[in-house]
């Protein structure tokens, strides 16, 4: 569909006004919200992601595109909510208890939001309880945790254990990131995924929801 192609094109350029306008026009033409999302916004973001990985464009361009994506989402999200479904998925993120490093987590949050996820950011120094309670309350299907200190990374285990104890580990997936953690560490604590950066985190979260 031509209009969706245009949505994708302007999204790639990071033009949020045009994306907003075109999304509105598409809705007027009775294109379904799901189709606008999949074939317009997400299709555009996929191109952006690919070009970013090839270093053809840099993070600022990705974030501009993400902002344009959000502009389109503002229009179509209410329709999803009306139908009682989340557009793409809901994720709770935060930096673990005792840790104040939040730059990586923030970046992951922006990128996830840019990819269309509903992101609930609990900030830094977040106790395990809070992660789990919020995810339960908000019906989030993924918890994303960040830790930058050797001395705080084990907090992540408290979250995965708590999920297990409550029998939630099948319905709520976990993804972790930060300098001291790794793929192996994720496995060892029963987390579902490890992201070495925000962009790869987005791809992994897509698989988890």
């Amino acid at each position, binding site marked *: 569909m031509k209009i969706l192609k245009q949505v994708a094109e302007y999204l790639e350029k990071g033009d949020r006004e045009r994306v907003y306008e075109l999304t509105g026009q598409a809705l007027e033409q009775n294109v379904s919200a799901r189709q606008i999302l999949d074939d317009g916004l997400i299709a555009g973001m996929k191109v952006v992601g690919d070009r970013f990985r090839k270093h053809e464009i840099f993070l600022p361009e990705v974030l501009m595109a993400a902002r344009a994506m959000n502009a389109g989402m503002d229009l179509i999200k209410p329709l999803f909510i009306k139908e009682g479904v989340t557009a793409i998925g809901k994720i709770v993120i935060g930096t673990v208890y005792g840790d104040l490093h939040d730059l990586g987590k923030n970046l992951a949050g922006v990128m996830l939001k840019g990819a269309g996820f509903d992101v609930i950011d609990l900030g830094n120094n977040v106790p395990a309880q809070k992660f789990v309670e919020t995810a339960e309350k908000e019906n989030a299907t993924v918890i994303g945790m960040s830790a930058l200190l050797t*001395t705080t990374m084990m907090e992540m285990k408290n979250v995965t254990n708590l999920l297990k104890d409550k029998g939630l580990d099948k319905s709520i997936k976990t993804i972790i990131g930060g300098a001291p953690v790794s793929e192996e560490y994720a496995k060892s604590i029963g987390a579902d995924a490890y992201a070495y*950066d*925000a962009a790869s985190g987005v791809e992994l979260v897509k698989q988890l929801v």
Partner: protein
Amino acid sequence: MRPTIEFLGKNLIQQIVSEAYLILCTLGIEIHNKNVLEMFSDHGAKVDIDKSRVIFKEDIIQKALKSAPKSFKLYDVNGNETNDFSGYNVHFTPGSTSINVLDYKTKQIRKPVTDDYINYVKVVSQLEHIASQSTALIPADVHENISDSYRLFLSLLYCEKPVVTGTFTIDSFEIMKDFQLAVRGSEKALREKPLTVFSCCPTSPLKWSDVTSQNVVDCARYSIPVEFISMPLAGFMAPVTLVGTLIQHTAETLSGIVISQLTNPGTPMLYGGSPAIFDVRFETTPMGAIETMMIDCAYNEIGKYLGIPTQAYIALSDAKQLNAQAGLESGIGATLAALAGINNISGPGMLDFESCFSTEKLVVDNEICKQVLRLVKGIEPKEDFPALPIFEELLKEKHLLISEHTRKYLREEHSFPGPVINRANRARWKEMGEFTLEERAHMEVEELVNSYKPSTLAEDTKREIINLMEREGKKYGQTSLPDRY
């Protein structure tokens, strides 16, 4: 003449400082610590307790700068002077607080344990061109609540050099201070002869956390020197331009200076930092980027202008292995830092965005430090004028190898690297075993570990700090400490 390098010049420095003042006095700084907020309020600053925000006043900043010591010294565990932070003096210290070590045998990273720490300390204690030690690794074989004090404990037990360190929590300060009192004997003696420098980090942009601002206050109470480690990330959490980043760094560092000097005027401080540009392709904070190093050298000029000795995280690399990238980034950093006169140069041994330590790299970097320290001695005439006599001697003798002039100045004019740097011709290098740099570095590490001699710190003091550490461990259920060799 001592060679130097300059990036800013007085006009630009004044403009940057004046913008930083404006930021402090209009936007202010967020400080998430009640005690510190109250202290500011008591000194007439505008404080919004609910928003944890302090709006500075020019006179508070100026007063703090006035009471800031223009120089200070560090002393080893036996009270001998090792570091003189003044003027353009430069001293090297290993990069600090890595998350991983690079294992020589596997070439993989892993979490460090007690043995790694002891090895490191045994090596650093013998490296001539690294003036102080730092608590470079976090041993993962002790309870996490003691892992910051435990590394200082091992450092003080095994190595005489003063220590660049820091805490992870407010609580750890107590024991880390008690170790120092045990070594020095009294508060007064510790004030007179500083043994450690604590790194204290503001949180960019324009913020102090509860923990790190309390660390500044606690150190000031005991006159323990601090180095402020402001980390604006250019293009991400700071303006993309180097000047913009410098303005932010200046504001953040000035705020630290004020916290310290309000608590205890005259507390020694280093005008430090670990800023970086943000690599928008890889989402990383490259310490080996030339722009990162330029920011470091430039804020050091600002520190000098304000009359405070300086520090920087420079002379380190983002390479993942001990390879050419590691050498070139560390080498360029060390060279620029020394030319700029950064007083405490933190970095040797460090790889991978300050997250990975390699003792092999440390011994390589020790050679970089040696050459750089030679570089900044510069070029001075030594009985070179008048020139005719030595040339007459040369023409007559056909060489100057045994000339008196040669014998007198050889070791002063030329520096001789250790076995890590190979200057043999190819045939001899082959005969020597064709070892790679990495292999030579590893052999040197083993050599140093074997030739280590225990610290001459008094035995009863050692026992005292062991008791302190054991007691601290028990607090967190660690009934015994890992074996030490």
